[in-house]
């Protein structure tokens, strides 16, 4: 069911600027702390599954999902933290279908793993931070 989206055209069509306007949606305090000086960060005190559902609602209302919701081999619920890049621009129908399938599958995947409490919150925050940082570097690179 993988529809091939065309992100590159998405960026060029709009206002010509190669940089795509996006913000970071996260429930990870470290991401909010480290990235909010030079990036727009929306921090919400939500669980792993709830932040995915929040991202889904924003996609439903016309924004774009720019990162994979199951990034990182640390499993959903095993880590309480999840950050995602949300694009301000309206996705094409193909991109909407593709990213909806990703987010719905990620939400469904939460049921497969057991929550583990957050004795290692600091480590989980760091992992999630480096994952989204790698995406931010790609996003800032200009496409």
């Amino acid at each position: 069911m993988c529809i091939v989206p065309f992100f590159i055209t998405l960026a060029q069509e709009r206002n010509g600027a190669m940089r795509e306007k996006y913000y970071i949606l996260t429930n990870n305090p470290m991401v909010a702390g480290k990235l909010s000086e030079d990036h727009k960060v929306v921090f919400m005190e939500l669980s792993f599954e709830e932040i995915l559902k929040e991202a889904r609602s924003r996609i439903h209302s016309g924004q774009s999902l720019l990162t994979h919701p199951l990034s990182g081999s640390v499993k959903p619920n095993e880590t309480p933290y999840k950050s995602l890049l949300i694009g301000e621009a309206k996705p094409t129908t193909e991109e909407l279908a593709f990213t909806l399938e990703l987010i719905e599958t990620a939400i469904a995947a939460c049921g497969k793993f057991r929550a583990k409490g957050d004795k290692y919150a600091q480590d989980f925050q760091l992992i999630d931070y480096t994952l989204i940082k790698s995406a931010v570097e790609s996003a800032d690179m200009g496409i």
Partner: protein
Amino acid sequence: MGKIKVVHYINQFFANIGGEEKADYPAELRKGEFVGPGMALNQAFGDEAEIIATIICGDSYFNENIETTKAQILEWVKELAPDVFIAGPAFNAGRYGVACGTMAAAVKEELGIPALTGMYEENPGADMFKNNVYMIATKNSAAGMRDAVKKIAPLALKLAKGEKIGASCEEGYLPNGVRVNFFEEKRGSERAVDMLIKKLAGKPFVTEYPMPDFDRVEPNPAVKDLAHTKVALVTSGGIVPKGNPDHIESSSASHYGEYDITGVMNLDEATYETAHGGYDPVYANADADRVLPVDVMRDLEKEGVIGELHTKFYTTVGNGTAVASAKAFAAEYAQKLVADGVGAVILTST
């Protein structure tokens, strides 16, 4: 503990009573007897198990009186209290396959007694019941009896003894949607190379993880006379009467809703809402017509554009992914729509 007790279910043909002309043969219990394929099964059990009774029933009799016959047979089986119940094998006989699947699933689900059956993968009974009860894959005719018994007997013993059941390709049952680990002869990379060589040579190969198949269904002819057609509304948006009387779950709902809208001209905040947890419910709760357009359909009905709006609508809640669409429910309520004389359906999704 003594020999494992087995009860065997077969149809009129395999009981040597007769073919189609005897398909109306009523259900019969033969205690202390094995019949037809029961002989081969009993031999295969050796001294580990024995068939303590055989239940025979004509395929027409069963399919035309499903509820009563099922209840009667369940009663017999309950009283016999076997360690395992075997139905069939049915090979490619359609009605026999459905009867075997129905009985094996009923014995397992309602009596909690281990049960299994066997049939050809294209038997209609296969798709219906392979995910409910273990079903040995057989050839498409009784010529495959020896091979079927060789697989049914060991699996029956394992089920009776409560042993761990291996993967479908180890035990010989039709894949039932439950992934089970096992150790292959060759390592994964070697299997991948073998598979690629076959695929390149156009030779058949068996994938180890079948992708969900998006089979195609041809479109029905267009509606000829809309002004005299009954049109029904169906939605996957989870619209239900206020308060969700049937408690339809907010995701991957286990059942669908059927609701009567006789005399209902419009859905509003006081009377209807959405049970679906997969999207922001505010707009659907404020006016459910935004998901299920009853108001406009009533206008079209009044203006004679459509014959009539069906008095019932059907509603489900999927789990959001296209892959896991609610296939089973649709087959059921589609039959009801046909039975109620519906000529066309508008299906709305969020």
